[in-house]
């Protein structure tokens, strides 16, 4: 049997794969490095702790204050609010479309939701300002409707399609076997959904939430416009606030390049990236746990 090697069979593209892959990884690494390198001077000048836990963000004040604690808190409030809004509603509507709605309804709703996922965020932001904010102001009797809640609702709205679409995938992917097992034990449809299907899809739903949250966390223009932008440490979700991304997007164009302010904005980007990494690590961990 002739099995001796007579030279490698490898073609050009195959040889190029490694370099191309490394190149694109270099690009991505470049992004991360851009954040780190450009952000580093800010950490150096301000001090890491003072930067992260500092209470005041006054980059153009004299002397400037570079404390992003209010921004971090705002980011969390807004993101958390968005989750509170988007997750139950997104998951619930996904359950409805996947399990209860007729196939026709299902095939229509899903693409429509996916379409909404690509509306430019300025439009969402403006919608927040001129449509939702006055409603909030009147209904809740607040001085202003431009606040964390407004941003949370809009971000939630933006995240709902992501959450719902991926959740729907996850729920549809739950094997028929499990449903059958539940029905065969005498459970009705509702019991089957609540006690079997949803728990079984929880890892997929979790992914949906993570991705929805990522979308919400990385979103700039919308929060910039809708959250009000006040820079104090927010006392509640009902006051104007200024999340990290809004700060980056709003101030990047005007910052004096090379100034501490400029570096600080990158440093915020880096903090955001770090939070994302932690988030994804956690997600990976939870997902692995869920599959066991």
């Amino acid at each position, binding site marked *: 049997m002739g099995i001796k090697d007579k030279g490698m069979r490898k073609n050009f593209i195959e040889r190029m794969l490694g370099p191309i892959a490394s190149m694109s990884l270099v690009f991505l690494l470049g992004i991360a490095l851009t954040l780190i390198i450009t952000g580093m001077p800010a950490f150096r000048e301000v001090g890491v702790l003072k930067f992260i836990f500092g209470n*005041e963000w*006054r*980059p*153009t*004040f*004299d002397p400037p204050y570079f404390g992003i604690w*209010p921004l971090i808190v705002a980011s969390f409030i807004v993101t958390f609010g968005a989750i509170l809004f988007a997750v139950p509603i997104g998951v619930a509507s996904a359950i409805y479309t996947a399990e209860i709605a007729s196939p026709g309804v299902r095939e229509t709703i899903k693409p429509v939701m996916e379409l909404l996922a690509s509306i430019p965020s300025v439009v969402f932001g403006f919608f927040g*300002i*001129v449509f939702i*904010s*006055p409603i909030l*102001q009147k209904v809740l009797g607040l*001085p*202003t*409707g*431009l606040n964390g809640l407004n941003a949370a609702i809009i971000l939630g709205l933006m995240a709902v399609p992501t959450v719902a679409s991926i959740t729907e995938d996850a729920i549809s992917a739950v094997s028929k076997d499990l449903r059958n097992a539940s029905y065969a034990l005498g459970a009705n449809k509702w019991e089957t959904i609540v006690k079997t299907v949803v728990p079984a899809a929880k890892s997929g739903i979790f992914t949906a939430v993570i991705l929805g949250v990522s979308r919400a966390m990385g979103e700039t223009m919308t929060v*910039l*416009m809708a959250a*009000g*932008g*006040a*820079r*104090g*440490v927010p006392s509640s979700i009902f*006051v*104007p606030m*200024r999340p990290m991304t809004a700060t980056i997007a*709003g*101030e*990047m*164009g*005007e*910052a*004096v*390049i*090379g*100034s501490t*302010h*400029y570096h600080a904005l990158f440093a915020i980007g880096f903090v955001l990236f770090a939070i994302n990494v932690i988030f994804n690590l956690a997600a990976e961990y939870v997902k692995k746990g869920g599959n066991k």
Partner: protein
Amino acid sequence: WKWPWQQQKSNVVSIQGSTTNLPITQKAAEDYMKVNKDIEISVRGGGSGVGIAGIIDGACDIGNSSRAIKSKEIMNARAKGVNPHETVIARDGMAIVVHPSNSLKNITVDQIQAIYTGQIKRWSQLGGADEPIVVVSRDTSSGTYEVFNELVLKGSKLRTDCIMTVSNREVAETVKNTNGAIGYVGLAFLSDGLNTVTVEGITASNATINNKTYKLARELYVYTNGPPAGNAKAFIDYILSEAGQKIVADVGYVPLR
């Protein structure tokens, strides 16, 4: 050292920077190119910082800015052998606006300062209704804010619950939609649904701004590397010309004359 594809396009004028200046430059470019068909002008925003950085980096021919160049930027420029040159192309006044339901007619600069630093929190303190004042400002990094900071705040800290917005239009929309709101916008953004307040008894107008009786006035600049030359000079001259200044007025800013 240059990449082979880096070429100098002689018939192109590239402008970037302040969003405040954008309407002027855009319209001017539009009209200018109608006449000078061989010239290509591209107008980009980005913000005043980007405009000045563009000059320093040589990324553009003309940098728009709604604030004056800062010393740090000048130092940067010098270090790179760039010599920023400033030209004022228009003036702008910041009108103080409140919600139409507000009965306030006049306000002093000190009062504005008190409001924006948080010493005055309710309209009742100014003789109005007993409701909280919702303070709306431009973002601290915008050129507009720089001017407001210089003329009104005079170095004191802006209150932290102040609503910060990215654009004049947003300020206008927010004030329109919020009962207790107060804000400042460029003259071009005054519209129905906004109540304009006199400052120290003076109404913002072309005349009061040009003669500096209106306290809250500012200038809009373009920067070039060295005194304007060639196509850039031609275009800046066009803005400064009669036709150009008419555009300034049309767009809603205050012409230099």
